[in-house]
């Protein structure tokens, strides 16, 4: 299959493909248990990988108390995620090191767009009844339209989980397809499966395939609001679905783990997973994003330790 670099256009739902999925949980668990231990990333390599991780962050605030001021502060951090002196020490001054995107609620998109004006950092908006997706479809679609109208270039949609739990793949497909058509050329679409709400890893795989067939640009693990968020197990299943989709169609779909990723060490495990199961291309921000709010501080601290050999104080890292 020839590799295509254009967006995934999706395809008609192939139910037989979805239904044939086999995912063995214990085999998945063993793989994710040994993978980080098989790929220890140290020293210069670790610094490079963490620097790369910074550029893959969807710096996120999704809270009831988000204000325009809070969003502005986050955007400032997004533009300058690392201290200038640290960038210089890494030999990366002058490089366009920014986070991958800033991710906010629809009501805050305008604030973010303004704050990021002049940078190339896209604003991502959650939509479609985030986080639970339990509002009427017309409203969910309207949210996408409004977010794009406000300037969002990436839309993180949530799926309607009952379709997965009841095995109604056609309904799931139709809805995500509708989201994708609403995004059109104006915005890339990341489809949140909310794996913590799904019953089995097999459903995670099936939902991943359906979301990709419906034209998702990315598939994303979680909203960050479920009680179980981005697990390596679910992530492994999703990236294997991405691989199979790519092998069959030639289209590369991105992956975004989100929720509960707060430490550099976790990031390295996710990166190793991407590199091992998909390849280096899937380590770059056009195919890999990490949804996180506090992770950046830990990446900064680890890079500081690499540069100076000293363990860093949290309060020395500028707040986002």
């Amino acid at each position, binding site marked *: 299959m020839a590799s295509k670099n254009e967006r995934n256009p999706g395809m008609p739902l192939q139910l037989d493909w979805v239904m044939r999925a*086999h*995912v*063995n*949980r*214990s*085999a*998945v*668990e*063993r*793989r994710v248990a*040994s993978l980080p*231990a*098989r*790929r*220890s*990333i*140290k*020293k*210069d*390599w670790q*610094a*490079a*990988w963490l*620097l*790369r991780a910074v550029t893959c962050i969807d710096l996120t605030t999704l809270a009831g108390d988000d204000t325009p001021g809070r969003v502005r502060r986050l955007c400032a951090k997004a533009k300058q995620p690392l201290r200038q002196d640290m960038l210089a020490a*890494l*030999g*990366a001054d002058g*490089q366009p090191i920014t986070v991958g995107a800033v991710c906010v609620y629809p009501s805050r998109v305008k604030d973010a767009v303004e704050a990021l004006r002049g940078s190339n950092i896209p604003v991502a908006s959650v939509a479609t009844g985030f986080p639970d997706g339990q509002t009427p479809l017309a409203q969910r679609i309207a949210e996408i339209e409004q977010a794009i109208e406000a300037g969002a270039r990436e839309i993180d949609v949530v799926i309607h989980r009952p379709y997965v739990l009841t095995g109604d793949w056609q309904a799931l497909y139709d809805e995500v397809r509708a989201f994708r058509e609403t995004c059109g050329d104006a915005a890339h679409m990341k489809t949140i499966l909310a794996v913590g709400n799904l*019953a*089995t*890893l*097999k459903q995670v795989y099936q939902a991943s395939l359906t979301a990709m067939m419906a034209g998702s640009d990315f598939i994303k693990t979680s909203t960050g609001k479920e009680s179980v968020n981005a697990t390596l197990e679910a992530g492994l299943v999703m990236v*294997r679905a991405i691989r199979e989709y790519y092998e069959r169609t030639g289209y590369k779909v991105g992956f975004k783990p989100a929720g509960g990723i707060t430490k550099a060490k976790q990031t390295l495990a996710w*990166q190793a997973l991407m*590199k*091992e199961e998909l390849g*280096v291309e899937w*380590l770059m921000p056009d195919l890999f994003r990490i949804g996180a709010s506090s992770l950046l501080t830990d990446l900064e601290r680890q890079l500081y330790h690499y540069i100076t050999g000293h363990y860093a104080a949290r309060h020395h890292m500028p707040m986002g």
Partner: protein
Amino acid sequence: MDILELYKTMDYGPAPESPAAVYAWLDDHERRFGLFINNRWVTPENAEYYPSYNPATGEKLAETVQAGQKEVDQAVAAARQAFESWSKTPGQVRARYLYAIARNIQKHNRLLAVLEAMDNGKPLREARDIDVPLLARHFYYHAGWAQLMETELRDYQPVGVVGQIIPWNFPLLMLAWKIAPAIAMGNTVVLKPASYTRLSALLFAEVVAEAGLPPGVINIITGSSKAGTMIVTHPDVDKIAFTGSTDVGRVLRRQTAGTGKKLSLELGGKSPFIVFEDADLDGAIEGVVDAIWFNQGQVCCAGSRLLVQENVADVFLRKLKARMGKLRVGDPLDKAIDMGAIVDRTQWETIDRWVQTGVKEGGELFQPDIPLPEKGLFYKPTLICNLDPAAETVQEEIFGPVLVSLTFRSPAEAIALANNTRYGLAASVWSDNINLALDVASKLKAGSVWINSTNLFDAASGFGGYRESGFGREGGREGLFEYLRPAWQERPRPDFQPPADGQQKSAWGEHVPARPSMPAATKTNGRDGRELPRVDRTPKMYIGGKQVRPDGNYTLAVRNPKGEVIGQVGDGNRKDIRDAVEAAHAAHTASPGWAMRHGYNRSQILYFIAENLDARREEFARRIVAQTGRSLASAQNEVDISVGRLFTYAAWADKYGGSVQETTLRGVTVAINEPIGVIGIACPDEYPLLGFISLMAPAIARGNTVVMIPSEKHPLSATDFYQVLDTSDVPAGVVNIITGDRDHLTKTLIQHEDVDAVWYFGSAQGSYYVEYESAANMKRTWVSYGLKRDWLSAEQGEGHEFLHEATQVKNIWTPTGE
């Protein structure tokens, strides 16, 4: 290093573990080690030394002593002396010592792991995450058995001084598998590590000494295979435990034959890795990685034979080749690699020769385009496809990172291909259909079966083989019996001197068919008191449920103690044995096969046999009197006990199925006591009926089919008995009876390669030959060494020892979780 460049390429870099502590330890010993005897380092005068190398770098790490006879004697004497007190030390005290050892292993975890990686070439990740944690686990687990021995194993005693010889692929783990159960059960040990990998055992010795174990309980001897032979042949060693190649296992079987030493062998394998179309293929791919590229494939239970269902084979092999391209081979101390170095150049060359053979045999070779370090003994992960089952590379153990692949069409064909091997160590079955997976698992001839997983180990689950993969188990309750003997039994010391090596030609088992014998058979008295000739009644052989004439048409006279001829039986020959073995196999392949019937059914048949025997109590008693000249009361007693024994095994027919093992797996690990298959049984002369029943009943109760050779002196009880069998619903071929010269018939049985076990209750000389000849196909043996047991007593004549001999344990690991 340019961070920005790495930021673009996102390459992996080295993540080396520091060897500093290992070097410091080696330097503490000035890089030269003595022998560990009585908790002290012993350096022989004018010692010869042998170098240890790091196979990844070629660096010489240290040198160790080549022990000679004097040192072996010294170590065995130390172990013998320690045995006196250690075997009498209460189990609860021994438990504390084992617990202390386990704790101390954990305290020195990293040093042990780093040394293991450097000495063996295995990835530090594996040594650290698998080998050393399992080492500690084994001592914890067996600390528990030491604690419980006096209550749970009260009918048993320790064996004595145990000689243990271990391989180089898992130096510490194999050491644990050997030492922990041995000392837990009150034995003392002399252990010899493999020549390539001697160092971690010596570090372990210090860990043990630091933990305060009494001197002499564990002795570590380094040396060549000559030292191994000295241990194996040492008269004061009571048991040998060995892990290694099947060829060496055969040598050990022969060296210990007839000596009364217990023996357990964990040998080679060519284990199947079966992938069904409904498996999680991506999961199974990682299973393959764990199966054949774990420890560079130098694993006795490596899943080295890939069997893939034909309709998913293309997809699976494409995925596999892609996966192989992601494997990283390099410095074992690098924590970002999958495979380290091959242990030694000789082994590297063997592997390479096998790969070339595979190509010559028409195999399609695939090795990924991945870099290897420029120096050191590294070998690429290798796949050879399109081979036929007849190819040598499919049949023989390679012991390296080489996978051969075949396809199958149906579950039945998968099972047939999987079992088409001389080995039977392990198997892996991948399917998301639990009915299919468990059905296949139940039909595989292998000691460990992993469903949707592979190479899982735990101290609570016995590991060991079927067929030529050896006998005995290591781990679990089942493994303890390798280090125990019944409390009533002394170490057999047979009074038979085996012939010197190379002089195996002997007259044992040779037999010239019988001729007519005078005087004539005794007469009987008619109703009017006149003497009448008896109605001639010549028993036949009993094969496949039919009475058949002996193939050779020769007849043997049966005499009473006065020398009078009281009857005749067929004088069996090789062909009778051949036919009986065929019939015994047919009883397994019948539908339902004997082993596949449920225990309830087998128990019903045993009860029925007992019922019918009891109905003919007087007749059987009189026959015993006629043959042995014993009193009628004594003969009646023998019949009654025989009936009772049938009841005993009717009881055991549905109560010895196995157990759930409490391993670390989330899921179910089940130990199943499976029948061994076809057992040839040579019965003792004492107690012509009871001896026969006591051996037949446990064997068939547990699903074996048998070829019985009755007492040579008193065969008529057995031949009378086939009429009982005929009236008791015993399916054809389950019990076959061949009369004649016991040793002559035994010789054919022991040399028959389709017989799975032979029990021999005869002379010391016969016991020697049975054990010696069994090495050809590694069949299990159980012999009496010419010693008698009290068949009348329940302690000696029935029970767990018999059930143990009639079964082999299969552990099926089934992970759970959706």
